[in-house]
């Protein structure tokens, strides 16, 4: 990526070290990469449903980043809280699940066995259940299906 006026200067080296403006409250960023976030996604979704919906509705009004800073801070804090809760009780199952996901193109359907362990651990620890919103109620959900044979 060549920035205009900097012919041989890679874009990755151009880092802006100025901190954010002082009137904004300081909030930590979520430090998980893609696979742990995908593994915890449904639990973050049930925990942080109101904050996420607030943020999406706010963004719907106005795409300007400055408009939704407050809701964004709440979303970040809630996600950090959810990840801390998961890791306090079920860290081994969580790690096993996201390591499996990392090797399988982050495909949830190919890592059902570690996911079963994680869901059971979280259910016994906090009572959380992985629920697909909008799934039909007359059949078992996709992660709870059992094979017809054997």
């Amino acid at each position, binding site marked *: 990526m060549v920035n205009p006026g900097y012919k041989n200067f890679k874009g990755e080296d151009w880092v802006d070290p100025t901190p954010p403006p002082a009137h904004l409250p300081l909030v930590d960023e979520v*430090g*998980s*990469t893609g696979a742990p976030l995908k593994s915890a996604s449904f639990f973050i979704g049930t925990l942080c449903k109101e904050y996420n919906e607030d943020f999406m509705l706010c963004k719907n009004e106005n795409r300007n980043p400055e408009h939704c800073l407050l809701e964004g801070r709440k979303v970040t804090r809630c996600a950090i809280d959810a990840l801390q809760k998961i890791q306090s009780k079920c860290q081994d199952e969580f790690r096993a699940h996201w390591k499996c996901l990392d090797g399988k193109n982050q495909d949830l359907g190919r890592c059902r066995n570690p996911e079963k362990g994680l869901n059971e651990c979280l259910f016994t620890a906090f009572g959380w259940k992985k629920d697909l919103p909008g799934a039909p109620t007359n059949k078992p959900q996709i992660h709870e299906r059992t094979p017809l044979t054997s």
Partner: protein
Amino acid sequence: MPVPFESLIPFAIISGMFLVTGTGIRYAQTKRNEGKVARYSLDDWDRKMLQRDKQLTGTERGQIDDPVAPAEFKVNSAWK
């Protein structure tokens, strides 16, 4: 007269070449992806997530699961 062994040499050469190509491709991909299988069918979300992972860990396939990001993460997004 039994099958002459000379006629099977080309088959052995062809299979050997398939093995060489397969092994070479697998070696190149695992080297590029830190020992993991290459990602495929990436959409915009996945590409932006890979870029975020590079900011967090230094490589696109590195994974960490700390809830809170290190302080450098706030300022290390490169201007594009």
